[in-house]
Every structure is written in structure tokens, then in C-alpha cells.
């Protein structure tokens, strides 16, 4: 409880002055005024105690996800649970961004009354991530304004802030060349695909169509050719986090936009990012647009860890990945680079 000393002194002074005036002037009218001032305090205490006990806070969000820069309305409803009201209940909200590990507080003052009208507070998120908004406590002001009483609440809501879907992306030399289906490849090239990435010995279970007959005849053992058919190729997008929040946002937004475009174009795409918790890269494949949001939600669910030399890390952790697109920030600019791991 926090007592507002100035108001309390004013109240005491008012009662004292009124009592003095009653002592001097006498009379019914002034005496009633004095009685009113005196009873106001216990009424105030009783109503405050009841309000503290009976009031109930509801917090709601209209949505659990939004886009960066859009308005989100967070609703607060503090019902008194009784006939009396209070002019002010200050709700302290703690807002945490799990992606960036930032947090802060703000306060929203709303009235408390019997009906408990929902008060919508618009928030705008200018950084990506998952925001957990928690109402820790409420300071309810009493009727006379003498004190603020603390009520502990524990209400949480969360919202994921995604990048804006369509960006005016610079085009890269990144047109998925081919992306043909297997059937298309078959039509085109017959059974002999010239784009072979690897030759190896036959292992039971390999598909007969993969047998490199020419070589097998030469070697007198079955050899399998590892296709580089486009239908089996995954375009990997690796996100490299940075220290600076805005630049990081740009990087993630760029990656998001890129992946959306790729998925829209039916390109099999994977997203990878370094997870400090796993000490490994997380990989997410996308079948459709919905998977994109899900993947990024997962990304936002843990703190973004800056990595130095992502390429070296990729080579060491995933040497099998020959090529990928690295989305990163350099000199304040977001860039995409095709990394050819074979070189």
C-alpha cells in the first residue's frame, strides 16, 4: 500500500478545520458536515478492502500474432465485484521479448467499476519476436484518494510479431533453376541424369533407378548415383543473427520474406538458424505457408544468439550441406549471399 501523504494531510486538516468551525459556530448543518467527513474514512477503508478482495482483472489479446508495425489491442477489464468504484487502478505490465531477451514495464490506468468495461490499449510492435505481456500487480486507488492498494495478479498473454509479409526485396541471382519434378526430369533426360553429385556403392534399399549401370558394368559391382534432381533439392536459408536489434530484425524479415516467396513458388525450402540452447542449428522445412509462421514462431521462442562466421560453423556442423543462402547484415545493410559449400 502506498499512502499519498499530501492527500492524507489534507484530509486530516479538513476534518480539524471543520471541527474547529463546528466548535465555534455550532449548529446542525456544520455538525453534519463534520460527521460526513469523519464517516468518509471508514467507508473509504471498507470499500477499498472489499474492492481489493473482490476485484478481478481480465486481460485479453485479440490475436496471438501480428505483423510488425501493426496495432494490437490488449484489453483490460477490472471488475469491482461490488457496487462501488474507484477512479484509478494502475496495472503494471511487464513486456518481455523472448527473441531479443528484452523487457520493460509500462503502466495502464483504468477505472474500476461494477460493470467492468473492457479497456483496449493499442500497442505497436516495431521489433520482431514473441512478446509475453504479464500483468504483475494492480494498484487500486481508494475513493478518497488517500492511498493506492496493491493487488497481486498474475495474468499473461502473448503475441508473436512477424515481419510484414511482402517486402520490396532486391532480387538476387536466385532463381531456382529447374525445380523440376522427377517426372519432368525423366521426360527431359531420359533415365540418365547427368547431374550426379555423388557415386557410391550399392546399399540394400537403394532404388534400382539410381543404379549407375555404366559404371557398375565397369566396376563389376553395383554403383549408385546420388541424384541432384531438383525435386530432391532443398533450398536452405541460413539466418545469421546480429547484435543490433534493428539490423537483426531486418535480417529476419528478409529471411521471412524470402522464404515466403520461395514457398509460394513451390521451392522446397529449409530454414536454419543457430540455437544457443541446442548448440546446433535448428532446421525447419516448409510444406506450405503455414509452416513458415510456425517455424518463425519457434525461432522467436528462444533468444537470438549472434554468431560469428556462420559459414565456418555451417561447415563444421553440417559439412554435408554444399550450398545455402546466407541472410546477414553487413555495414547496416541486409544482404543475401549464396554460399557454395563445394568450393
Amino acid at each position: 500500500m502506498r499512502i499519498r501523504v499530501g492527500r492524507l494531510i489534507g484530509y486530516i486538516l479538513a476534518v480539524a478545520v471543520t471541527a474547529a468551525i463546528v466548535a465555534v459556530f455550532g449548529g446542525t448543518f456544520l455538525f453534519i458536515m463534520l460527521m460526513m467527513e469523519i464517516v468518509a474514512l471508514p467507508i473509504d477503508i471498507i470499500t477499498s478492502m472489499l474492492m481489493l478482495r473482490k476485484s478481478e482483472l481480465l486481460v485479453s489479446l485479440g490475436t496471438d500474432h501480428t505483423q510488425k508495425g501493426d496495432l494490437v489491442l490488449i484489453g483490460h477489464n477490472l471488475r469491482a465485484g461490488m457496487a462501488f468504484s474507484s477512479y484509478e487502478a494502475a496495472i503494471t505490465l511487464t513486456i518481455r521479448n523472448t527473441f531479443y531477451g528484452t523487457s520493460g514495464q509500462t503502466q495502464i490506468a483504468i477505472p474500476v467499476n461494477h460493470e467492468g468495461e473492457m479497456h483496449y490499449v493499442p500497442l505497436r510492435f516495431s521489433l520482431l519476436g514473441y512478446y509475453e505481456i504479464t500483468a504483475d500487480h494492480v494498484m487500486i486507488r481508494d475513493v478518497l484518494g488517500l492511498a493506492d492498494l496493491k493487488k497481486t495478479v498474475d495474468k499473461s498473454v502473448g503475441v508473436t510479431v512477424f515481419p510484414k509479409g511482402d517486402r520490396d526485396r532486391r532480387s538476387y541471382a536466385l532463381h531456382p533453376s529447374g525445380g523440376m519434378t522427377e517426372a519432368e526430369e525423366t521426360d527431359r533426360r531420359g533415365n540418365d541424369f547427368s547431374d550426379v553429385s555423388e557415386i557410391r556403392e550399392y546399399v540394400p534399399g537403394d532404388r534400382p533407378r539410381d543404379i549407375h549401370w555404366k559404371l557398375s558394368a565397369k566396376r563389376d559391382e553395383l554403383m549408385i548415383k546420388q541424384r541432384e534432381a531438383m525435386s530432391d533439392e532443398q533450398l536452405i536459408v541460413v539466418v545469421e543473427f546480429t547484435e543490433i536489434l534493428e539490423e537483426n530484425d531486418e535480417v529476419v524479415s528478409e529471411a521471412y520474406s524470402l522464404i515466403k516467396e520461395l514457398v509460394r513458388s513451390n521451392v522446397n525450402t529449409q530454414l536454419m538458424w543457430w540455437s544457443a540452447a541446442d548448440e546446433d542449428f535448428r532446421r525447419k522445412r516448409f510444406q506450405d505457408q503455414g509452416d513458415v509462421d510456425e517455424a518463425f514462431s519457434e525461432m522467436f521462442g528462444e533468444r537470438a544468439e549472434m554468431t560469428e562466421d556462420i559459414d565456418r560453423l555451417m561447415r563444421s556442423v553440417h559439412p554435408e550441406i554444399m550450398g545455402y543462402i546466407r541472410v546477414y547484415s553487413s555495414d547496416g545493410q541486409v544482404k543475401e549471399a549464396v554460399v557454395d559449400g563445394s568450393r
Partner: protein
Amino acid sequence: MALGKRKKEQPLVPSPGVTVITAYRDTRTEKKGNTDIMIKAIAVFLLSASSIYMYIDGIGLSMSLVVFFGTLAAEALILSLCYRSSKGENLVALLFLAVFVFAGINFRYEINSGFYAVVNTTIDRITDFFELSGMRTYTERVANRYVTVTAFSIAVGMILEYIVFNLVIWSASYVWCFILTIIPNLVIIYLDGLSSLPASACVWLVMMVYIALVRGGGHFRFNRGSTEYIRTRKGISYRVDKATDLNMFFMAIVIWVTGLMLALVCSRLNIYNGQSRIKESTEPAVKDAFLRGADGILNRYPATGGLNSGRLGGVNRVIQDGQPDLEITFTPYSTDTLYIRNFIGEYYNPVDNYWTGNDDKDDQEQVSALKKSYKSGKGARARMDIKNVGADVRLYEPYYTDTTEITDGISDDGKALPSGATETVTYYPLISLDDMQIKSSDPGDGYRGVPTDIYQTVSDFCRRAGLKAGMDTDQAVERLRAYFQKNYPYTLSPGATPKGRDFVEYFLNENKKGYCAHYASSAVLIFRSLGIPARYCEGYAVSMESMANNAEREDELSYDDYYSGQNTLRSSAVIRTTASDMNAHAWVEVYEKGHGWVVADVTPAATEDTGGGGFLSDLMSLLTGGGSRNDSIQNNNVSDDNGTGDIRDSFRGPRAMWLMLVMILVLASPIIWIGMKSLYSDIKYRRAFAAAGSSDRLIMHYQRQTERRRRRDKEFSRRVNYEEQLLYLYPDMASEDRQRLKDILDKAGYSPHGLSDEEYEWAMNELGQSSRKRRHTASNSDRV
């Protein structure tokens, strides 16, 4: 439990990347704001109307309730409608000014008469309460009090309501509301404590509590914005909530009912009976304050009719209550004024301004002479009973009292007549001066001296008045009396003598107006400077006219017991008369060779007041130096005429100037206040701007521009983010520039890194240029 922190609390910072938008506009907010101001207008109406009605009803006047309440309700409604915009607010101020001027001109007599009706009725109530009589009243030009009181109440009520409305909506200042609405009612609260607890008092109580609760809640400040929230130090706060406002009415009623019940319980248990001993003890002081008014507070000592045993100069204005001080039973023997003396002043103390008294009347030789005359068949011997009913405790004697024959009532030391006591004196009325022949010719040096400090003043005066040493006493007295009558007008409001000035010098040289004490004191010194022994006397002077008005014949008392000897009146009888402070007087005695001390009254007759208005005309006369008061009270005890004070004289000169200045200040205060307010906010902004970093400066500058625009342009106020606002404000700006400006504003607002100098300069430049272009375009299009 923590006490409210004294230090400035640090603002809360939401998480980076999160902005709480206060510019968000909810369509319901505008309606909520309108309802909120309507609720407050109702509260103001109830408070103001109940306050006025409480008083009018309390003093027993009646008026048209429909017209009164209807007018005030209409005013409250108009205020609540017009205050929704700043233009409306200004318009309503002009409208009311026009209404007041119109009403003031066309209904001035009704309002004026209503004012005096209230004043007169209040005076009646107070005089009844204090059992006074003879209080001044004002003339009511229009007789129909029902109409005039209504007109006056509406005039005052409208002004009060306008002021209270502004107090409530801008600051919910219940202290000022309390002061403004309760102060006039203190009169009736003091008189009868509002024991009947009228409905108006109950409404007033509830409304005062309501406004106090609104203030306590903190969300009282009126705001015309249509946004749902306003920014606070720690975050945001809602603007208005009508449900809570209405609920506070209910809370106020609950407090009132509970308080009332508690008061009833206390009354039943005899814990409190409404009486106050302190109040009873204050009644004399309050009565005195009522009689004397504010001027009386400035009087440095209590004075009966302006006199206090030789003390001079401290009376600003003589206030008379007309209550009997002495009750005198005697037989009149001539048409001359009856003098009852209680003080003789021998030495004059200049600058300290008092007469040193001499208890020795030094007139026994004269008494013996008169006694001898009586015994020889000339003259007369009389008896007088003097009862002290309200005078100071002193000795009161008519002229030529035989001190050996004073019986009854006197204090043991023979120097005072206690309150309630009656003394019986034997005295020898002076029928003819020839009956009083004495041998002594020298009264002593004490009655000749003129202090050196004022000798020159007195001499100069004598020269001006044509008075010369060696003149015959009678001639000197006549000449002085005539000179005073012509050049030194009588007044009961001479003003107190400034500190450090001599009383006589100030009167003779500068003030040149006064009442009996002024003339008597000056005359004594003047006569002395001419070589005529003189002394200063105080007491009561009861004229024949005064006796004729209030004396009662005492037929059961024997004439012979009270009078024997010569009587210049053909028929006389024992009468009982009273002497009040209206009869209090100061006069001169001069020593005539061979006869002793004789009365030489040089106080001039007062000039008669001739009509004039009341309070307002007095006010005008204060400012212009003209006019006079219509005073219905009888004043003074000077033998010939009644005297009335001229209020104009009290306020001439610097005082009127100050009053003018105050009035000008009061009228100009709203303009001054508005000017100071905008100057203050401008200074505050500039200081904050100077102290801010580049990011904050840019935001402040931008906000200032958009705030002004938002107030004027409803369409613009709907644009809630930078993009929309910039597009609206600067449609001609290149889109790249607009985007860059938006990015810079975002960075300034949200980024912890701050702007570079280049970004700041560029953005400020763009905002400034674009503003000028916009204004230029707007003015051109206006011309087109």
C-alpha cells in the same frame, strides 16, 4: 506500506520495440467525454443553485424557483455544450458577457433592488439576533421583492456557476468551490446553524462531497481530445469514464446518509446539541464587527460614539448602535442641551494624541454659588437619577452636581458608576449666569498650556480664522464656531489620524473634517493660545429634541422630589430618558472670570444628506469623488442638527485609486491569466527542448506541429501513425523523402541509438520547409 515518494518517480519504459499508442482514437471516447462534462455541469448546477437558494431561503426571502433554477440549469447546459471545443468556450464567455451587460442595463433597477432586499433582510435578521436597533438600511427602488430577489439571485447565481464550472472541470478544486459557495451562507449558519437542514443544504453537502471525490480520484482534468488515453509519466491513463463518475454520485449520497445518521445518533445520545459556548462568547465580538464593519477593525480602540476618555485619533469611523447607555430620570428645566460629564482633560499630549484627565472638576465653588442663589430664592435645585445600563464604568454627573450629596450606586472610591447601578445626584441647574458668581479668577496653569509641538499650528489657524489674543471669550467662541461650520465640515467618518501625526495638527491642517472630539480638542488649544483657559470634556449631551423623541413621563414620581426652584419651562414633569452612543459628545469648557467653567460647544452642525443611491452609487462616488449615501439612521447628539457621515470622504484620494486599480485588475485578470498560461507553457516547452537530445527534440518539434494541426483539423486527428500523418501533411513531398523522414522519426522515437547530426538536421529542415510550403499553399488557396 510505503509513503508516497517525494522524489520524482522514474518513468517506466516499455520493452524496446513496444510503443503504447495514445493517439489511438476510440469512437466511443468522444461521447464519453461529452457525457462526462454533462455530469460535471449537473454537479456544478446543483452546487451553485443550492448555495444561493440556501441563503435566500435562510433569511426568509422568496423568489421564483422555476425561473431561478431554470436559468441556472440552462446556463449549465450551455456551458457543457460549448466547452466541448475551445471556440465554443470562447464563444460562451462572450455570450455571457453580452448577457450580463444586457441584463445589467435593462434590469439594473430590479437587480439593484434585489441586492438591497437581500442586504436589508440580512441586516434585519442580524439586528434581531443581536437585539439591536436603528441599523442602516438601503432604499429599494422596486418594491416587488419576489421579482427583485429573483433577478438578483439569477445574476449572482450565473456568475457563481460560471466560476464554479471552470473550477470543477479544470481542477476539481473543491476547496475553492467550498469557499465560494459557503462564505455567504456563514451568516445564516452563524445565526441559526441551519438547524432545519433544508433540502438545499443537503444537496450542497452531497455535491461538495462529490467534487471532493472527483478530485481524489485524480481523473478530473477536462480534456477535449478524442483519444482514449493520455500519456503519463509511467505509461498511459484513460481519459474519462462516465460509469465511475455516476458511481461517485452514489458514493457521495452514501457518505451523506451515513453522516446524517451518525449526527442523529449523536444528537439522541446528547453528545452534541448544536450549541456552542465559544460561539456565545464570540457574539459580542461579532456584533462589534457587524456594527463597526471592516473599518472598525482598523479602529485602534473601542470608543463610545468615537470617544474614549480623552484618547484621540484612532477612530476611523464612528459606528453607533443606538443602544441605551444611561437611563436618566430628571426634570427638564430649559431647552438647552443636558450635559452629563464623565471626563475632563487637562493636559494635551501631542503626537501621542490623548488628554490627561483630571478627576477634580474644580467646580465646587460654582456649586456653592448656585446653592447660595437657590437658598436666596433664585436658581434651582434638582435631583437626577442616573442608571448605568450600558455605558463604561465611570462617574457620570450633570453640571454643578453637589458631590457631597451623591447617594447610592457609586463605587466605594466614588469614582465610578458600576454597570446596572443607579446614582442619585443633587445638582444646581444653571438658570442664569448671574446666579453663579465666584471669587476665583484663575483656574490654574494646567488649563492654559499649549504644547510647543503644535503651537505654530494653532497660531497659524488663529490667524486664518481671525482670532486674536485678548478677544472677548464669547466673541472668540462664536467666531470659532462659525469658522468651523464654514470650513471644517462635520463627519462621523473622518478617518483615523495617521500614525506619527498629531491629532490636532492633522485635523487643522490637512484633514479638515471630524466629529466632536476634533473640534473640542482643537478649540481648547485655540482658546488657550488666545489666553482663555479652557478644558476638554467628554460625556453625553442630550438635546431637547432627543428627549422629545424617546423620553417617558414618570407621573408616579413627584415633581417636587426632583425639582424645586426656578424653571424656565412653563410646564415640566419628571421624565425618564436615555442617552446612547448617539448622544456621546465632547465639548469645551472655558473659564469665565467671575463665573467659573462654562460650556462652550463649538462643534458645528452636520450638513444634511440629500438622497443618492445606495451601495452602487457609493461605489461610484468612491471612484469619482461624488455622491452620497442614503442613510436612514439618526445620528449624533449635537444640539441642533443630525449628522450623517459621507462615505465619499473616507475614500478620496489614494484609496479610490487603489480601488480602481483593483477593479481593472479583476476585469483584466482572465486575459492576463490566459496570456500567462500560454507564456508559461511556451517557456516550459523551450526549456525542455533546450535540454533534450536530438531524438527527443525532433519528436517534440514534430509533436508540437501536429498537435496544433490536430486541434484544428478533425481529419488529421484520425491519422494515428507517422506514415498516414506525413502523407496527409506533406502530400507534395517526394515519397523517398517521406519514407526517410518516417524512418528517422521511427528511429528517434524507438531506437536507443539516437539520431546522427545529419539525420537530425535533415529531418528538422524537411519539417520546417514543408511547414512553410504548406502554409504558403494554404494562404494561396485562400486567396484563390
